[in-house]
């Protein structure tokens, strides 16, 4: 064991620390940590942070490691602190519609547990089902269901956080309405581990409704698909999701059909209401859906949407006001030169039409120095255009050399004044993923 890993195993136990080749799969934006440590309690997390402050190490909190390549590359990566071994469900009260679990619990495990009582966590963040609750909150990203149910920030009721200076904070609680003091939960949601390590999370649940139905509409080209998605998002109904899906080169559509663009509308209602919603949506589309998927099949197509980032080497999140989705989609033509047309599936698009967020996933890039330079200039230009229009561009995942050059996050404006103060309030010694979040 290297000296750093050795010191950590003295403070915790040998079985809770790995280094060397075992640490490789925990690389953060391409940088392998000197040790990965698996605490089993808040006290142990605080202990790890205490040693790190003494020794001047940089720590990156994580779950199962799926998001370690996301965000801005941190300035230092000495220790990855994984919540993987803190994964128990600590309270589930079906009558109160909440579940509380340790941060390392997998979303899939939550799903299994709550479905027994016909309840669910109405969130579908990118990254698939093996992601952890803590990572979902730390990243804070929402999926298509944001339209109907809000994002993680709207559904988290409480959390425990071990701050960089080793304090254990109990934030929020177990009840839906809670205004007892400043809402610090909002700050840790989407904080990418820079304020502390989330060790437990309490989430609001929803009852499972009688009908889960997805309507698929096909469109001839991307532009008309974007216009259709935009129009359907303005249906005067509260739809659970409206997603524009553009498969990559040679890929079949998410439904197994042809590779033309699709608009998938998800309806979560009682049976009678779902039929009526289908009628209203079809009327607005000016055509019947080419496919109607009920229950498991409806859930399955949206599970595919969650997994769309799998295998991508570059993931971008572009946004503009929802009514401008067609323009936003049009702007992706600027990215078409970034992948090798002969390798891989090229570029996939998935847009949450009601929120105006477009995900771009790219595979098959040569990643040469020349490519990095070209991609940097394309992305910087695109970000500038979007910001000028009140939108944004986030590099969600990508080659570290590219993300470093472009910057993961965009212009945060005058509010950046407060960011350093907030970080210092939770992590005065700046040991937590320094530089990971926009400053």
């Amino acid at each position, binding site marked *: 064991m290297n000296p750093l890993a050795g010191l950590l195993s003295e403070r915790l136990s040998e079985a809770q620390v790995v280094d060397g080749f075992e640490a490789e799969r925990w690389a953060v934006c391409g940088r392998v940590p000197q040790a990965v440590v698996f605490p089993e309690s808040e006290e142990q997390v605080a202990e790890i942070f205490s040693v790190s402050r003494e020794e001047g190490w940089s720590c990156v909190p994580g779950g199962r490691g799926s998001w370690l390549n996301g965000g801005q590359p941190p300035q230092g990566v000495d220790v990855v602190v994984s919540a993987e071994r803190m994964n128990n469900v600590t309270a589930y*009260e079906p*009558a*109160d*519609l909440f579940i509380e679990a340790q941060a390392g619990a997998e979303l899939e495990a939550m799903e299994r547990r709550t479905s027994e009582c016909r309840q669910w966590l109405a969130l579908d963040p990118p990254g698939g089902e093996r992601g952890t609750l803590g990572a979902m909150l730390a990243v804070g990203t929402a999926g298509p269901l944001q339209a109907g149910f809000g994002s993680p920030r709207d559904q988290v009721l409480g959390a425990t956080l071990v701050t960089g200076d080793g*304090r*254990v*904070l*109990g*934030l929020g*609680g177990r*009840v*839906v*309405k*809670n*205004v*007892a*003091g*400043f*809402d*610090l939960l*909002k*700050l840790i*949601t*989407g904080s990418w581990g820079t304020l502390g390590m989330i060790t437990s999370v309490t989430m609001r649940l929803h*009852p*499972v409704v009688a009908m889960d139905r997805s309507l698929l509409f096909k469109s001839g080209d991307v532009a008309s698909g974007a216009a259709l998605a935009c129009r359907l998002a303005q*249906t*005067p109904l*509260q739809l659970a999701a409206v997603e524009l899906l553009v498969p990559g080169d040679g890929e079949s559509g998410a439904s197994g059909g042809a590779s033309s663009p699709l608009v998938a509308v998800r309806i979560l*209602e009682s*049976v*009678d*209401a779902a*039929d*009526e*919603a289908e009628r209203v949506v079809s009327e607005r589309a000016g055509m019947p859906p080419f496919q109607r998927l009920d229950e498991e099949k409806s859930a399955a197509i949206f599970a595919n949407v969650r997994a769309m980032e799998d295998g991508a080497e570059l993931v971008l999140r572009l*946004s*503009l*006001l*929802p*009514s*401008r989705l067609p323009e936003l989609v049009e702007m992706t033509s600027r990215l078409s030169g970034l992948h090798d047309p002969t390798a891989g599936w090229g570029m996939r698009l998935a847009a949450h039409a009601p929120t105006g*967020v477009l995900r771009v996933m790219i595979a098959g890039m040569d990643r040469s120095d020349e490519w990095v330079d070209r991609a940097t200039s394309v992305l910087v230009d695109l970000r500038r255009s979007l910001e000028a229009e009140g939108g*944004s561009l*986030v590099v969600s995942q990508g080659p570290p050399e590219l993300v470093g050059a472009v910057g*993961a*996050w*965009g212009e*945060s*404006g*005058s*509010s*950046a004044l*407060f*960011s350093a*103060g*907030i970080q210092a*309030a*939770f992590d005065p010694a700046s040991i937590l993923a320094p530089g990971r979040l*926009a400053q």
Partner: protein
Amino acid sequence: MSESLTKKLGNRLRGVVGDAWVIADADRLLAYESDGLTAYRRTPRAVVLPQNTDEVSRVMGILSQEGVAVVPRGAGTGLSGGALADGDAVVVGTARMTDMLKLDPENRLARVQPGMINANLTAVAEPYGLYYAPDPSSQSACTLGGNVAENSGGPHCLKYGVTSRYVTGLTVVTYDGSIVELGGFGREPGGYDLLGVFVGSEGCFGIATEIEVRLLPRPEGVSTLLAIFDRLSDAGSAVTEIMAEGLLPAALEIIDGATIRAVEASVFAAGYPTDAEAALVIEFDGIEAGLAADVERAVIQCREAGAREVRTAASAEERLALWRGRKKAFGAMGQIGNDLMVQDGTVPRSKLTEVLRRIGEIGARHELLIANVFHAGDGNLHPNILFDRSDAEELSRVELASTEIMAVCVEAGGTITGEHGVGVDKRRYMSLVHSPDDLDAMRRIKAVFDPLGCMNPGKVLPDPPAVDGAAS
């Protein structure tokens, strides 16, 4: 005694907002001596009423140069004393900032000034088939700026969530007069969710001068029922069973026997039977075709829980009639008691019945009349304690009972306030739900926005513990 406004400071403020909009004479300041929680009264040094972001910024710049504390104020309908200003503080009110700045029906967004009244936003959005979801009971009087400060709820947040879910962007002015943009729909640039932490900060971080909110499409249909119960606990069970059925009503509201009798004895009489011990208002909304089945299931649950009567509304007028008793409950109680102390604890839904029983015991022990009207679906209680402020001995019993009620809510796994905020009223009780470290973290975050501690001082956070035995 309020420190009078010096001539020089008064003139500088008048230079920004105009002579008519700086209020410093004692008679007119009386209107600002309390908010909706009238048990606390103090007179501010002065009130300034700017009309836009630029004026707020200049006013705050002047006040911060002079080191004068600032208390933001909307319509003054708050129920925790959050808009109370000590004699050395100046109130910056939003009463003149009532404009709709931009309505974007296509994107279901509105940008408004903070003084706009909650219900007016829905009225403006209505022709486009849109509405603003959070609906505090005071919605015909309270302002959106106040809603942002308190992170307000309302009966329909059971299904739709509270204010923070709908605020997508803010322009705020901090104590030193800086203008800062937070959030904004259509962009997700990364960085801390400063917008999220600003909502519900009770005027302690700055003043919101422009508010961007999301609107929702008006649901196609609404169905309302009223179930009458002989026992409050049966109404509580009905709520539990309705939720367990997997139904998600837009609202689930209970008013207890004492409240029913207060309402029926007042000018707001709604035709609720006065011998009942609980009335449960249930509302479903959404696609018309799906409502009948939901209503039918809810009626069955009410009957099984022991409802002696279930009324359904067939028209918009009937629906308003069923709601009347709930909406006018506060007003009605104002008619039977001199003063009203309303508590606001939230408990997990399954603990409602037990907590209500214990609140009843607390009332009996302190010989106080406590009338309950509450958001049962999300466990947000509103025990109203009726009393006479001029009776000091009774007031002390009210304070004891309030403390005990909050402790019961916390013990049941809940919290001390669900939607009214901490203000001055509950800051003493913050340590019931927060550890010293939690409170310290809140203090540090306040200091990031307000390093001098001059924004709405003396609110939300209890005084820090005394150091080295010195008095704080």
